[in-house]
C-alpha cells in the first residue's frame, strides 16, 4: 500500500451539512396546521482528498452524493461546515481574488451529456467558454488553437468544433464535456455519474480517457457513481454514503475485499455475478427510507441484520483507523466483522 502521508491534501471537507426546506407554502402550513419539513440531504460529512488521487462516493439514489458534489464545486452553499480547496475556504469572502482563480481550477462533468451542452451553440463556442470567461488566452487566434488542441486531446477531430451537439453520439458528447472541463486547466474535477448514460463499450473508452488525462495533467477526481464496478476500476479511495451520512471510507482494494460496514456488505452482495458461479445474489431487504423523516439512531438500522437497541437510539460516531473510517456501533463493539 502506498503511503499517503507524503501527499498533500487538496480538498478538505469538514462536518458538511445541507438542509433543504421542503415544507408547503406559508399559507398552506397555517391553514393545514402543518409544521415545517426539513430534508437533511447531507449530514456531517468530512472527507479529505489528496492531490492526484481519485476519491469515489457511492450509494443509492437519495443518499446525498450529488449534493456533496454540488457543494464542493460551489453550485450549492453548505448549510454548515467548511470546504477548503488548495488551502482556501470556499466561503471566505475576504479572498475574492484567490477564489476567482480557484474557481477556474475546479470543474464539474455532469451525468447527462444531452442536457449539459447548449444545443444552440457550436462545439467550439462551448469549449471556448471557460477560456473566455477566465480570460486564459489573449486573442481569438490562441483560443481557436487551444480549442483544437482540446478536441484532439479527448479523441475528437479539430473540425468537429464547427458542429452542433446534436450531431454527436452520447459518448462523443461526453468527450465534449470533458474537453470543456479541461479548458480552464483545472486541478480538480468532479465527475457526477460520468458514464451512467453510456453503453459499456463506450464507457470503457471514456474511463480509459479519464485515466490517461489524470496521468497527463496530474488531476484529482471526485468520482460520483452508483456503479460499483466502475468505482472499483477508477478510485483509489471510496466513501460509501447512506442517507446523507458517510458510513465507511476505505481504500478501494480493502473496501471490496474486506467490507466492514453492514451496508457496504449489502451493496457488494447486490452486484450481479458476471462470473456465473451459480450463486444467487442476496437482494437487500427494503429500500432507502424517506430522508424527511429518517430513522432514529443509526439511519441504517431498519435494514441492518445486526441492529440492536443501541443502534436504534444512538447515532454512531465515526471510528478512525489508519486507512479507514467506519460509522457503526456493531463494528466498534466487535459484534460485526469478527468471524
Amino acid at each position: 500500500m502506498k503511503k499517503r502521508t507524503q501527499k498533500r491534501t487538496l480538498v478538505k471537507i469538514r462536518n458538511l451539512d445541507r438542509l433543504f426546506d421542503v415544507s408547503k407554502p406559508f399559507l398552506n402550513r397555517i391553514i393545514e396546521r402543518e409544521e415545517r419539513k426539513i430534508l437533511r440531504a447531507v449530514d456531517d460529512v468530512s472527507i479529505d482528498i489528496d492531490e492526484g488521487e481519485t476519491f469515489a462516493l457511492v450509494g443509492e439514489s437519495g443518499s446525498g452524493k450529488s449534493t456533496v458534489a454540488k457543494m464542493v464545486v460551489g453550485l450549492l452553499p453548505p448549510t454548515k461546515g467548511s470546504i477548503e480547496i488548495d488551502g482556501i475556504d470556499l466561503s471566505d469572502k475576504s479572498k475574492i481574488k484567490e477564489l476567482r482563480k480557484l474557481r477556474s481550477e475546479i470543474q464539474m462533468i455532469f451525468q447527462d451529456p444531452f442536457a449539459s451542452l447548449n444545443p444552440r451553440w457550436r462545439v467550439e463556442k462551448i469549449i471556448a467558454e471557460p477560456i473566455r470567461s477566465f480570460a486564459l488566452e489573449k486573442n481569438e487566434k490562441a483560443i481557436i488553437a487551444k480549442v483544437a488542441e482540446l478536441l484532439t486531446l479527448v479523441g475528437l477531430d479539430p473540425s468537429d468544433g464547427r458542429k452542433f451537439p446534436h450531431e454527436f453520439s452520447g459518448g462523443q458528447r461526453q468527450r465534449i464535456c470533458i474537453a470543456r472541463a479541461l479548458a480552464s486547466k483545472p486541478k480538480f474535477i468532479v465527475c457526477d455519474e460520468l458514464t451512467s448514460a453510456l453503453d459499456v463499450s463506450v464507457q470503457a473508452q471514456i474511463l480509459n480517457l479519464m485515466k490517461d488525462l489524470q496521468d497527463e495533467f496530474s488531476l484529482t477526481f471526485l468520482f460520483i457513481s452508483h456503479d460499483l464496478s466502475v468505482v472499483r476500476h477508477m478510485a483509489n479511495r471510496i466513501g460509501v454514503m447512506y442517507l446523507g451520512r458517510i458510513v465507511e471510507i476505505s481504500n478501494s482494494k480493502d473496501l471490496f475485499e474486506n467490507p466492514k460496514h453492514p451496508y457496504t456488505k449489502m451493496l457488494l452482495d447486490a452486484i450481479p455475478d458476471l462470473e456465473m458461479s451459480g450463486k444467487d445474489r442476496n437482494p437487500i431487504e427494503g429500500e432507502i427510507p424517506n430522508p424527511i423523516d429518517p430513522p432514529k439512531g443509526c439511519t441504517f438500522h431498519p435494514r441492518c441484520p445486526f441492529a440492536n437497541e443501541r443502534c436504534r437510539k444512538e447515532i454512531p460516531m465515526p471510528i478512525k483507523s489508519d486507512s479507514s473510517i467506519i460509522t457503526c456501533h456493531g463494528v466498534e463493539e466487535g459484534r460485526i466483522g469478527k468471524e
Partner: protein
Amino acid sequence: MSEILLKIKDLIVEFPTRRGLLRAVDKVSFEISKGEVLGIVGESGAGKSLTGAAIIGLLEPPGRIGGGEIIFDGQRIDNLSDEEMRSLRGKRIAMIFQDPLTSLNPLYRIGEQLIETIQTHLSMDNKQARTRAIELLDEVGIPAPETRIDAYPHQFSGGMRQRVVIALALAGEPDLIIADEPTTALDVSVQAQIISLLKSLCKERGTAIMLITHDMGVIAETADRMAVMYSGQIAEIGKTYDLIRNPKHPYSVGLMSSIPAIKGDVKRLVQIPGSMPRLNNIPKGCSFNPRCEKVFEPCYVKRSPLIEVGNSSVACWLYDEEYKRVKAK
C-alpha cells in the same frame, strides 16, 4: 427441446425517410421456448427495443415491419389487424417498460389501473377483480396490499412502482413478457430485488421472458439464452453461460472485456475503437468490419450468416469452415 412459443424469421424493421429507407432491424431470427428467458443485449441503437416493439405491435410510425414473420404460438401475428392485435396484447404478450413512472397513469389509483387491466382480459366482476388485484400486489411483494391498492403511483418509490408495473403485466396471465430495460432506472440494491422477483414469478407460471437490457450482469443472472445485437443484426446467440464465459464473435469478445471487473486490478479496460455505424452509413459486408481486429477479405464483401459453433450461433466469417481452411493455408 421444449415447445416453441415465439418464432421470429428474418424480421426487418425499417423507417422511410427522405433519403431512403433505413433498416433499424435487419433480418433478425430467433426463437423463444415456453418458460424460457431470452436476454437481448447490445448498445443503444442496436435495434433491441425495436425488435421488442415489433413483436408486440407497438412500433411508432413511420417505423414499420418491412419483412419477415413473427409467429406466436403457431399463429402469424405480424399481419394482424389492430383489433386482433389488441386482444393479444396484454393478454398473451405483456410488456414492461424501462421507466415505471411513465408507464403508470399518475391520475388514477393503482388499484383502478390494475382492475381495468384485469377486467379487459378476464371476465370478472368488480369485486372479484379487486380481490385479484390485491393478490397480484401481494405476489409482487408489496406490503399491506389491501391498503396500498388505493394509493396513487407517486406515493410509491421507484422499486415499488416497478413491482406494480410487473403486477400489471401479469394481470392478463400472459405467456410471454417483453421486459424492455426493466431495471435500468433502479438502484443496484433494488435491481436485485426486481430481478429475483421476475425470475421466480415466471418460473412459477411458466411465463417466457424476452429481457432487453444493456446490463450484462442482469442477463448473466436471469437469462437461459442470450443474443448479442449489433447495428440491427444478431452477432451471436447461444446459451448465456457459454456466451459470457466464452464469447466467439469479435464484438461479443470486446463487449465482455470492456466491463470493469469487480475482482482484480486492471490497469486499462479493453476498448472497442470507434462507435456503432449510423443507420444511413452501414458499411458493406459485415457491419462490424471497421472496428474489428480480426477483419479479413470476406468481411468486406458479404455479411456472414449465423454459423453454428458449439452451442452458439455466430455471424462471423472466422468460423466458416471454408475460410478457416483458406486461412490455415
